[in-house]
C-alpha cells in the first residue's frame, strides 16, 4: 500500500504546488507597481501565511521522497560496487545521506515557519 500512497502524494502535492504558484502569480498580475508595503501586507495576510506554510512543508516532503528515491537508486552496494571500496559501506552512506536531508529539512521547516509567523 505504501507504494501507492507515496505515488499519490507526489502527484497531489505537485498539484498543490501549482495552485500556490498560481496564487502568487495572481498577486503580481492583479497589482502593478507593487511597493514594499503591498508585498508585506500580502505576506502578512492570514491566507498567504497558511498557504505559504503548507507550500514549504509540502515542498520539503515532496523533495525528500524524491531524494530518497535517488538514494535508493544510486547509493546501494550494487550501484557503488563499481568503486568496490564503497560497496561495503554503501548502506551506511545512504543512511548518512538520508539523515542529512532529514536534518536539513527539519532545520528549513523550523526556520521557514518561524519567518512566516513571527
Amino acid at each position, binding site marked *: *500500500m*505504501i*507504494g*501507492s*500512497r*507515496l*505515488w*499519490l502524494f507526489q502527484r497531489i502535492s505537485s498539484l498543490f504546488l501549482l495552485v500556490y504558484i498560481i496564487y502568487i502569480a495572481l498577486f503580481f498580475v492583479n497589482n502593478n507597481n507593487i511597493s514594499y508595503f503591498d508585498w508585506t501586507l500580502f505576506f502578512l495576510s492570514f491566507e498567504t501565511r497558511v498557504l505559504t506554510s503548507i507550500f514549504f512543508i509540502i515542498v520539503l516532503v515532496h523533495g525528500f521522497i524524491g531524494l530518497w*528515491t535517488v538514494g*535508493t*537508486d*544510486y547509493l*546501494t552496494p*550494487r*550501484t557503488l560496487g563499481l568503486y568496490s571500496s564503497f560497496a561495503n559501506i554503501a548502506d551506511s552512506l545512504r543512511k548518512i545521506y538520508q539523515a542529512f536531508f532529514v536534518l536539513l529539512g527539519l532545520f528549513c521547516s523550523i526556520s521557514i515557519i518561524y519567518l512566516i509567523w513571527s
Partner: protein
Amino acid sequence: MQKIEVNLYRYNPEKDRFPYMMSYSLDKPKKDIMVLDLLNMLKEEDESISYRRSCREGVCGSDGMNINGKNGLACITPLSSVIKKNKIELRPLPGLPVIRDLVVDMTEFYAQYEKIKPFLQNDTEAPLQERLQSPEDRNKLDGFYECILCACCSTSCPSFWWNPDKFVGPAALLQAYRFLADSRDLKTAERLDDLSDPFSVYRCHGIMNCVSVCPKGLNPNEAIGEIKDMLLKKKKNIIVSDG
C-alpha cells in the same frame, strides 16, 4: 571486396582478469544477413566465441544482446538495419553479470518472473472440459501474453539496473498484468498486494526504453500503467469502505 569491422565483447573469467573488446574483420556479405548469421561466421573463425541461440527465428528469446548500443534479438535483426559505417559492436545484455562473452546470468531476471506467480490461480472446482472465457475477456490479454522472456526490455531499463532485486522490471510486469487481466484468475487482490510496495511497480519512471527495444513489439509500459491504475482504484475502494 568491402570489409566490415565487428567489435565483440570478450570475457572468459577463467583466463581474463577484465573484459575487453576484440576486433574482427570480415568480407562484407553480398546479401543482407541477420546479426546471428554474422556471429556464426565469426565462430567458424574463432570457436572460443560464446553466445546463446536456439530457434534462430525470434521465438525462443535466447539471443538477446546489445547490438550497436540497442538491445535486440540477433536472429531477427538484419545487419543492414544496425550497421554504421561498416562497423558493428556486439555486447552482452547490460546490467546482468556476464558468464562468458555474450552469455549473461539471468538468475535475477527469472527470480522476478517467479515472484509474480506466472500461472493461473483459480481454486474453484474445475469444469468438466475447460474454463470458458468470453471473446471480449480473451481480447484483454492481447499484447500481454506474447512475451518470449528475452530480457531485452528489463536489461535496457535503468530502474532494473539499479534495483534488479526489488524492481520487478518491464518483462515480469507485463506478465503480471497478463494474469491480473485474466477473467479466469481469482487472485487479483493478492497479486496487487504483492506489487504495492514502493519498488515493485513504482520504480518505473516511464523512461520507455523497454518499449523501444521489445523485438516482439510489445508495450510493457502500457501494462505498467494498467497495473498502477488497478492499484490506485484498489486503494480508493479501501478508503471508501473504511469510512
